[in-house]
């Protein structure tokens, strides 16, 4: 299979046009760290964006950065970190989960659109993508959005590009919002709660005025290996419910006291300070308890998004009935579920439960064979599925980009 390493946006256009002309579908990659997510693709050439790696403009005072899609995420993160800024949506690094090295590129981060714990406060990848230059499946270079946050000029195509897994257009350059890093953080921890009670505690914290920026629950699990920052909790053998506060030190301390009082009905509260707190949240963000190299490394992993207050009951039943393990983030609104290996990854069970709770589930880690047979992304209702297909065709009528990855569909 050909790998075509493009050097500039013009190359991208050329490659896509040639691919259209010869009906040779392209797989679009940056560093290829998320290639194992989605259905196996029906592509016969690879468009490699990793050489489009320049930072075009970083303007800390404007809170924006413009970078080419192939720029390494780690490099960009350390650049903005040098100005004490960050991507506020805390992009999930899937490398541990998938057992690959490197955290990928900016293009991959946007295409996957996976946001971490702070999504409940700061929004997702889609909320931080301000503008893009991309090449559609028509082979046309187009731009959308701009370089300012407040912009309603024309349709907001950025929203579609985020989380589209490279199936609508090949991004060449993007402008992202960056935000100041909080001066300090503190995590309040409740111990020993069952999932439903923990869900109630998180709901109570998120319904308080204390500006909680992370709300996660790690159930007491027989399976979870003692990894990283969670080793201490596992040793205690007790479930941990974690609530993060961020901001200026005086404010964090003040809110921590208030929140501890709010949480009093759920038990006594332990505090994790800055470094320890940060470590715990990166473990949750990157789903490290289900790491490919860990005890559950061979188990399929589902990413379930649901109304937050229904998460506890949903996850608890799912874990019980499947014999699997779950981690809750977003106050219960995001459940990572590792289920015992079955050829169908227990898709029917997962989807039936998740739909009943008003959510949806994507199979983020599974064998290639499973990903061939099971809907990786949540099947949509007829009308919405048809509309999504028309949207796809409006960008890529010949399904030349990442064919087969997201929706099982064929060319027009």
């Amino acid at each position, binding site marked *: 299979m*050909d790998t075509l*390493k493009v*050097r500039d946006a013009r190359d991208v256009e050329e490659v896509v*046009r*040639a691919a259209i002309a010869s009906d040779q579908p392209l797989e679009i990659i940056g560093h290829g760290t998320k290639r194992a997510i989605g259905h196996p693709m029906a592509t016969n*050439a690879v468009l490699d964006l990793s050489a489009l790696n320049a930072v075009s403009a970083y*303007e800390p*005072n404007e809170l*924006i950065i413009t970078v080419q899609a192939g720029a390494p995420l780690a490099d960009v993160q350390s650049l903005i970190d040098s100005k004490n800024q960050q991507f506020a949506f805390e992009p999930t690094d899937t490398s541990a989960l998938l057992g690959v090295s490197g955290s990928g590129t900016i293009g991959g981060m946007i295409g996957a659109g996976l946001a971490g714990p702070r999504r409940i406060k700061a929004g*997702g990848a889609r909320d931080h993508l301000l503008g893009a230059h991309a090449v559609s499946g*028509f*082979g*046309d*270079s187009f*731009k*959308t959005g*701009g*370089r*300012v*946050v*407040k*912009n*309603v*000029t*024309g*349709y*907001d*195509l950025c*929203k*579609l590009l*985020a*989380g*589209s897994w490279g199936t*609508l257009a090949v991004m060449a350059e993007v402008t992202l919002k960056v935000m*100041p890093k909080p*001066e300090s953080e503190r995590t309040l921890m409740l111990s020993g709660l069952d999932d439903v009670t923990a869900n109630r505690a998180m709901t109570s914290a*998120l319904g308080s*005025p204390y500006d909680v920026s992370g709300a996660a629950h790690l159930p007491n699990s027989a399976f979870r290996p003692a990894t990283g920052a969670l080793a201490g909790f596992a040793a205690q053998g007790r479930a941990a419910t974690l609530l993060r506060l961020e901001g200026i030190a*005086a*404010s964090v301390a*003040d809110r921590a006291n208030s929140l501890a009082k709010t949480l009093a009905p759920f038990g006594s509260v332990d505090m994790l300070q800055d470094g320890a707190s940060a470590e715990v949240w990166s473990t949750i963000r990157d789903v490290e308890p289900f790491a490919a190299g860990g005890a559950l490394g061979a188990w399929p992993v589902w990413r379930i*998004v649901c*109304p*937050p207050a*229904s998460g506890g009951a949903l996850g608890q039943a799912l874990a019980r009935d499947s014999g699997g393990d779950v981690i809750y983030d977003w106050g219960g*609104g*995001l459940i990572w579920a590792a289920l015992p290996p079955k050829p169908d990854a227990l898709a029917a069970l997962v989807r039936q439960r998740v739909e009943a709770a*008003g959510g*949806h589930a*994507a199979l983020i880690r599974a064998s290639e064979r499973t990903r061939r047979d099971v809907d990786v*992304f949540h099947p*949509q209702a007829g009308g*919405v599925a048809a*509309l999504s297909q*028309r*949207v*796809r065709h*409006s*960008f890529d*009528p010949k399904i030349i980009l990442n064919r087969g990855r997201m929706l099982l569909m064929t060319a027009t």
Partner: protein
Amino acid sequence: MVIMMPAADQAVLSRRDAIVAALRAIVPGEGVIDSAAEMLPYESDGLMAYRQPPMVVVLPDTTEQVSKVLKYCFEQGIKVVPRGSGTSLSGGALPLADGVLLGLGKFKRIREIDFDNRVVVTEPGVTNLAISQAVAHAGFYYAPDPSSQIACSIGGNVAENSGGVHCLKYGMTTNNVLGCEIVLMSGEILRIGGKAAENSGYDLMGIITGSEGLLGVITEITVRILQKPETARALMVGFAEVEAAGECVARIIGNGIIPGGMEMMDKPAIHAAEAFVHAGYPLDVEALLIIELDGPGVEVDELIKRVEAIAQACGSTSCQISTSEAERNLFWAGRKAAFPAVGRISPDYLCMDGTIPRGALPKALARIRDLSAKYDLRVANVFHAGDGNLHPLILYDANQPGEIERAEAFGADILRACVEFGGVLTGEHGVGIEKRDLMPEMFSEIDLNQQQRLKCAFDAQGLLNPGKVFPTLHRCAELGRMHVHGGRLAFPDLPRF
């Protein structure tokens, strides 16, 4: 005026009686309005320089009726213009002579308040403020706060992706909506998203938000609600030079402080507002910043100190800090009344809405001053300074021949300057008809074609709100055509692996 709408379809107009009768069969009673006198209130929206009576007004009160009306119009090839409260400042709800005006004003019910999931499920005709009021007893509110929030509907907010003073910190409508029920032009009813943080598949909610009524008619919306910050305090800071005020804004943000709101007014705006509401604004300054910090008391107190120090370092000439809610509200009173205040000193005004990078504020103000001299029209400037969103108010008198044309040309030049400085044509008011013909200043034909292809995915016949947003209408078949270039997969000079 200057902007032309698509020519009316005489064949449709000649069938008007039959169309009215068919609509009456769908929406009974007073829900169909066809007399010229009763249609008068629907002739224009907030962009009042433009007026056009619709062919007929329909006010359905159920999703099923909306669906049937759209299906009928779809089958009959009749254009439809959706309308919420009619407060659009860009003409997004301007009727068409041969179109049905579909008003959502009867969708006035909040369907569900769910504090545990921190969402409100509401019908689109509910006002923005009513949502906040409905959840205020539990300490919650809906964050986006366009200045028309008493009147504007949440459906219109979604259509326009409305902003407001507080969107600097809390985001615009698009960052605060989770799901909707939408009726496509074909009459098909779809549910997108819900109470979960994200919808599955493509982010259709994201594309519907801000689509200015061109993609579908929204009949239900799920919005996020937040806990009200514990306290809010404001600083009112005067500067002898606009540049210093601009520098102050940049430094506050540069220091990692994101205020709840950060507004700027120039001298003419300050004077007009002070004469109107007597808020105690300093009259000897060239620029006034109102900066609001919100959050826990200790945090607000600390940030007030930091902002005050930054302002002093930038050469502020006056600085007042609110010590009570009454005082904070007084600081805001002038800013919130800026538009009507300017309305008192001029028979008419045009409100512009470009966004620029914050750093370009002084440059943009200088340009606006030059243009004011060139067009011989006064201008008062109010800005959402924190996010670079400018609202120059161009003062004119419609009774003076040629003045509105001059005012529009002045406004267009301001928006061109915004694009030139790295910004955009509209920050929160929408393109509508007002900025439609300026779209090529920002987008190439290819860019616009891609947007219109998306429109085709929702409305292949182009019947929903045509003539808005896009300067040129294309047929979907034409847009969908592939122009294949080359013909071989051969890249002789590309590295291969």
